């Protein structure tokens, strides 16, 4: 399992361009969208500036992007012979799937970290507590692992890049907009609010926002349990469907 994380780190050491380019979109959100919308003052954020409010949401949106498109790499590896070869090693499919998912978590952490300095420059105030920071990134790491498992699951059904690209977008955007990333859940119509209670993204955003910005940790335990359950379920399901990918 750890080998797959090592693989990812070695890849990142050789080539980080993807991370830089992927950072463009979230930076636009917090540098342009945030300040513009905060001028409107239409969204109740519980007393924190709007840009500060959306920063964790945007960070998590971008890490979710990274994770969901991790499956694209699996599709690529399927087209080449890498997956076939991996399946002929003694490594169990559970360790392969979990290893790959957590490897995506590593990539996600770097992706989230790169946004921090920009956020600081434009004046987002984080809670200066190293324990909170560490815990926030641990949550991002595990949540990204779960989203990567979703993408491996999707990859094992959608075996071509084109189909995968379409499905990837169709998964991420609803998750993002039907979550508390950009606005509090109370603003949503009731049906959407129902949906957001099963949207893992909301729990992750809530936990990370509490730890980095508001200091409101009242839901932290529920959030942690939600992420753990989410990971456990997805790891098992993705592992079961994984063999299908090469058939």
């Amino acid at each position: 399992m750890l080998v797959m994380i090592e693989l990812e780190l070695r890849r990142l050491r050789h080539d980080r361009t993807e991370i830089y380019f992927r950072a463009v979109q979230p930076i636009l959100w917090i540098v342009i969208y945030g300040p513009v919308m905060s001028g409107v003052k239409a969204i109740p954020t519980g007393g924190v500036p709007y840009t500060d409010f959306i920063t964790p949401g945007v960070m998590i949106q971008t890490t979710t992007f990274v994770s969901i498109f991790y499956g694209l790499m699996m599709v690529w590896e399927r087209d080449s012979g890498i997956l076939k070869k991996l399946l002929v090693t003694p490594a169990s499919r559970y360790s392969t799937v979990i290893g790959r998912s957590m490897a995506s978590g590593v990539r996600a952490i770097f992706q989230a970290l790169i946004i921090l300095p920009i956020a600081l420059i434009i004046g987002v105030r984080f809670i200066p507590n190293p324990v909170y920071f560490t815990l926030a990134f641990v949550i991002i790491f595990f949540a990204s692992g779960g989203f990567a498992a979703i993408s491996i699951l999707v990859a094992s059904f959608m075996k071509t890049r084109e189909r995968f690209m379409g499905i990837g977008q169709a998964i991420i955007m609803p998750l993002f907009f039907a979550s508390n990333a950009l606005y509090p859940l109370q603003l949503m119509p009731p049906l959407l609010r129902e949906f957001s209670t099963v949207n893992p993204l909301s729990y992750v955003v809530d936990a990370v926002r509490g730890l980095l910005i508001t200091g409101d940790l009242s839901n932290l335990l529920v959030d942690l349990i939600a992420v753990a359950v989410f990971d456990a379920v997805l790891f098992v399901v993705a592992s079961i469907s994984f063999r299908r990918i090469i058939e």
Partner: protein
Amino acid sequence: MDVAVQVKGLVKIYDGKVKALDGVDLTVEVGEAFALLGPNGAGKTTLIRILTTQLKPTAGEAYVFGLNVSHDGGKIRRLVSYVPQEMSVWTDISGYENLLIYAKIFDVSTLKRGKIIDEVLENMGLTQVKHDLVRTYSGGMIRRLEIACAMLIKPKIMFLDEPTIGLDPAARKVVWERLTVFKKEYGVTIFFNTHYMDEADLYSDNIAIIDQGKIVTMGTAEELKHSLGGEIISFMLEGSNFKSELPNKIRKLGFVKDIFINNSNLNVLVDNAEVALPHIIDVLKNEGSSASKVSITKPTLDDVFLKYAGTRLEEKGRISDVTHMRYMIRKG
């Protein structure tokens, strides 16, 4: 001899309609190089994928070192290494790192790891470029790296799916030289698919010819060629007047199967031309004749294929396809 691979009545049907394998039986002995020769779509890759536990057979049984591919997948995967037809290394890290990752996946102990990796890099002639990104390698180097990955774990059997497809002749030769040395040193069994006839001819101990999901014939390259009837030695004799008893004298040599004469050419049909030739020349000398020109016509595996499968192996189109695909994959 111990048996490395045993296949009995193997059938594989994809999606309930495409019959890729139609009752395959074959045996591979430990320590031999076994070539599965056949045209595209004959079922070669399907057979290798079943033997490496990637696919389940629809019917029939297959054993690798006595382990059933349907039930003992985990145990088999510890004994075998596999090089798929497509490219199977990560191109965005170095050759050394690829090997390191595989060594860790296979739990090669930390103490031995460095030594073994250096050894296989050396074996495959990649030491100079080990820290370069695989993206910068040539096709032949990538193939050697893939085989290095397969050698890393000192498997009991290697399954190679078209190991030299798309490589130029020099690169193919290098790959096979390294494989031959490895086989000799470690006694590893090599099971490979190919549609290059010369490759099956030169580098295998046994060949099975597969066509439309069925093994049509099996044997050593020599046996297969001899099954066509033998080799022809033609002598162009000096002067057209040789003694009339000459053909009979030659016929008396035990190994001569037939003789026919046209003009001043004397044609002798034998099993093994190289062995027969000196004896026949002796007879010619004793009878006071000499040949101004000698030529040997040997049946090729292509002739064998023609006889048993009814068609010639068409290789051109397909090779350029695969080369193109590998190229595209490398480009990402």
